[in-house]
């Protein structure tokens, strides 16, 4: 067995295990962390396919950003996983049977020989061309239209998220940093010309109480 084959099975095994733990872990935080592990191993599998850009983008986007926020939310929620699991064992036989039937059906249809994998041209990168560069080149030439469309979809997501969550309350106290920076001395401090006062004890002309 080649070393890469060994690595493939290692990554795949860990990934399957952690994916299983995602749905079986009792603690939702553990489940999220197992999902992170699953992503990690998926990235490893992609690295083995020499798709280093996709692998690293997966880690950067999913592990580094999406899952952190996910974890953030899950930690704050009080999820009673026991209640969610209620009735799991009762419905398991039916669900498992249907699932098994579907798996068998799909497997019979989708065994390897049906796909025209041999029709696909072998993917060969020219020497000295990195995967990232090749991807960038095709993304910004032939596929620029779908690429831009995807960016518009993200823009819509931003607009929708802002629209659905931003509430402008009237009683919020905020600050405007630009105003703070623009403050002049004269806005805050007034220097008043006064006659100097002497140190002498309270014997002033009007005979008032000592200060």
């Amino acid at each position, binding site marked *: 067995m080649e070393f890469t084959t060994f690595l493939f099975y290692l990554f795949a095994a860990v990934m399957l295990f952690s994916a299983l733990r995602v749905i079986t872990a009792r*603690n939702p*935080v*553990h489940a999220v*962390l197992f999902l*992170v592990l699953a992503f990690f191993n998926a990235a490893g599998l992609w690295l083995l396919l020499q798709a*280093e*850009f996709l692998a*690293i*983008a997966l*880690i*950067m986007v999913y*592990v*580094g*950003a999406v899952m*952190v*926020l996910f*974890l*953030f939310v899950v*930690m*704050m929620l009080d999820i009673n996983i026991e209640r969610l699991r209620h009735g799991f064992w009762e419905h398991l036989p039916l669900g498992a049977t249907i699932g098994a039937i579907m798996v068998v059906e799909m497997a019979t249809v989708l065994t390897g020989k049906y796909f025209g994998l041999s029709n696909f041209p072998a993917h060969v990168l020219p020497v000295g061309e*990195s*995967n*990232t560069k090749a991807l960038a080149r095709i993304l910004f030439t032939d596929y620029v239209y779908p690429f831009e469309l995807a960016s518009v979809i993200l823009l819509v997501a931003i607009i929708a998220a802002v629209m659905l969550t931003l509430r402008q309350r009237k009683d919020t106290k905020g600050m405007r*940093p630009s105003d703070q920076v623009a403050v002049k001395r004269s806005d805050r401090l007034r220097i008043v010309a006064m006659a100097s006062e002497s140190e002498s004890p309270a014997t002033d002309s009007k005979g008032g109480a000592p200060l």
Partner: protein
Amino acid sequence: MMNAFLAPVQQWLGPVFPLLWTLLKIVLILVPLMLSVAYLTFWERKILGWMHVRIGPNRVGPWGLLQPIADGLKLFFKEVILPKVADRKLYFVGPVLAIAPALAMWAVIPFSDGWVLANIDAGVLYLLAIGSIGVYGIIIAGWASNSKYAFLGAMRSSAQMISYEVAMGLALISVLMVSSSLNLSAIVHGQAHGYFAAQGMGFLSWNWLPLLPVFAVYLISGVAELNRAPFDVVEGESEIVAGHMVEYSGMSFAMFFLAEYANMILVAAMVSVFFLGGWLSPVGFLPDGFFWLAVKISAVLFFFLWIRATFPRYRYDQIMRLGWKVFVPLTLVWILVVGVWMMSPLTIWK
């Protein structure tokens, strides 16, 4: 010369050689790194002392030089406390996850021409990816401690680090554009050419000058990524008593400590490689070499210590505002500027 020396060893060890050789190289990087971390803490206390017009540590050893060793020994022999309500496994996974990325990232940092553990093409992406994992150590530690201060720290850190990763990543895009490579050695080599470099004033040809706004953004975001003053709300000793680290003691605490300082050196090294010409010599008549990288890293580290001594802590909303409303737009605009510049006849990158 090196190869001639290694050849017999290679023959003797056979197929195990690459593994052992890589392990040896890793040790060769990590041991000096750990020593640097130890003395960085010493140096920090000294500099802070001088800036406060104090003396700083001076009791252990000559001029206090053995102080970090003593600190290390103390931490090593301290009891590791596990809070009763903590999540037992994750509580110990946290510190490991904090320090592992900090060490793993050194794999792609070039120390001098050709002196790099893994000269991979996607080096920058690797740094960004592994760097983004660092936050897990803090979040897990904060959650697993089952303490409100630790949890507050974890929450603050996750939001802060994600925000500043965006700015850092966008800042790096300008660097990638001008060097048209993701390989760190190639990025350094790219800074060796230019009008000023030909005049013998190489330091003006480095990326920091044409990419000045991005350089500033990267440097400041780096400090925020490190959760160091003035962006240290994650630890915020006076507010949430050290945040995620509050329940840790002994070696588990020391791991966080090591991670923080290793990350500091790492960010300084990244700033040096991306913007300050890595191992390149600033002037034409002096040779390039590792020495220059060390000087640059030290200078950036001094900058970190300096602002710690000088600036008050930012408020949380100010940190978010700076990241999202100032840095992100600034870097985006500069990407556009660099793009137009590169395509115009005035381009300085060919």
